[in-house]
């Protein structure tokens, strides 16, 4: 058996793990427990396949992307692996730009090549001067174009440029896809809980449409939160989804609103609303959280403490790019 890693091929002896073979050949691979529990040695298979035992304990979204633990992998055939995820590069041409909210643009991009992504993943949008920012995909793979939702940040370099200067017909470079916040089919009766604030709606919309398109039958509850109801967007699309798909429910949440029509608007902090609505079914639900990192990290912890399994919480915090690391 042979394993190829970053261009080098190493012979794996009988019963030897991929980690030991790579270390023996002098490669510098991170590891700690060497027993399949700490996940320090996580790698990804790009060709060939790894035994099931090498993926035990990994979340299903990671397994779906070919991740495995090198210290638990005794391959039964030749494999090619990588430490870092391989990215594709495509060029996207803006086909539509629509203001869908107070400060949110919906951009539709037609790409020159296929992008092999899962709904809910994100791409890095790269401007010609090299400035790069992550934006989530709101589209699903069958759609004719990629859809992004971009909120204008005060003083934001990329979002300001997108809002002011990126026009229909313009081209941008995209790299990706990245991220592990997506739907994996297999348990169609499970309850799905999707919660996001701001443009956290973008990946959630993709995930919900993807799950429904794949025949998910259990309840799909999408919670979208904003400070005031006027800052919610995509309401028509979501209400329409609700009309077309029985299991889907849209919960609009606003923090500061004197009175909501209880039929269409829930007033309060979205995290509290989510927790109080789903508590009983939490232990068996699958959860997707997207948007502001403070919101995502806080709700992830609260849901976990309330009984959700960490294996079932998929989170995508929109961490702002550190202003020091990309100063140029």
């Amino acid at each position, binding site marked *: 058996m042979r394993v190829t890693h970053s261009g080098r091929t190493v012979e794996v002896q009988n019963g030897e793990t991929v980690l030991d073979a790579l270390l023996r050949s002098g490669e510098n691979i991170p590891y*700690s427990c060497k027993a399949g*529990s700490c996940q320090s040695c996580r790698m990804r298979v790009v060709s060939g396949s790894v035994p099931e035992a090498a993926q035990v304990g990994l979340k299903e979204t990671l397994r779906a992307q070919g991740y495995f633990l090198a210290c638990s992998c005794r391959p039964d055939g030749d494999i090619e692996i990588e430490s870092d995820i391989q990215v594709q590069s495509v060029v996207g041409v803006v086909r539509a730009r629509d203001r869908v909210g107070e400060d949110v643009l919906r951009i539709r991009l037609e790409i020159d090549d296929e992008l092999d992504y899962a709904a809910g993943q994100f791409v890095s949008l790269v401007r010609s001067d090299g400035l790069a920012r992550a934006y989530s995909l709101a589209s699903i793979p069958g759609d004719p174009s990629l859809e992004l939702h971009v909120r204008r940040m005060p003083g934001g370099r990329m979002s300001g440029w997108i809002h002011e200067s990126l026009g229909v017909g313009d081209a941008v470079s995209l790299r990706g896809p990245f991220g592990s916040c997506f739907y994996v089919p297999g348990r169609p009766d499970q309850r799905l809980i999707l919660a996001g604030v701001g443009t956290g709606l973008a990946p959630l919309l993709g995930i919900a449409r993807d799950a429904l398109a794949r025949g998910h039958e259990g309840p799909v509850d999408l919670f979208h939160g904003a400070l005031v109801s006027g800052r919610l967007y995509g309401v028509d699309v979501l209400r329409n989804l609700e009309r077309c798909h029985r299991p889907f429910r849209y919960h609009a949440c606003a923090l500061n609103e004197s009175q909501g029509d209880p039929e269409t608007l829930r007033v309060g902090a979205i995290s509290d609303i989510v927790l109080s609505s789903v508590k009983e079914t939490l232990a068996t639900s699958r959860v997707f959280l997207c948007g502001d990192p403070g919101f995502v990290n806080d709700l992830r*912890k609260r849901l976990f403490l309330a009984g959700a399994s960490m294996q079932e919480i998929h989170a995508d915090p929109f961490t702002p790019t550190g202003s020091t690391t990309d100063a140029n």
Partner: protein
Amino acid sequence: MSTLYETLGGEPAMQAAVELFYRKILTDERVSRFFEDVDMEGQMAKQKAFLTMVFGGPSEYSGKDMTEGHSHLLDQGLNDSHVDAVIENLGATLSELGVDAASSKSALSIAEGARDDVLGRRGS
């Protein structure tokens, strides 16, 4: 004799066990600050390595590894009282899992046996 790790059902059982344990640790204000990590999944995987070790599962940690792995926590004030708290939470986890007294005792004593390494008292 089979290990507690095997009796409980091996790796798959560790996932449920670590969730129980990590919920306790995160809500125990004596020690939670050491475990609050934005990378909750990564932190939980480390705690799974801890449980796998004290349950007698496959583990290759040496005493030196334990000292190195916790040295950054010593800088944050880690001391005996925190080890006591972690061992207490381990005990509560074991009883919630319905582990018999003899197996519990062995797991707790493995943890206890690592105390000096964790606190960096074994020298090098």
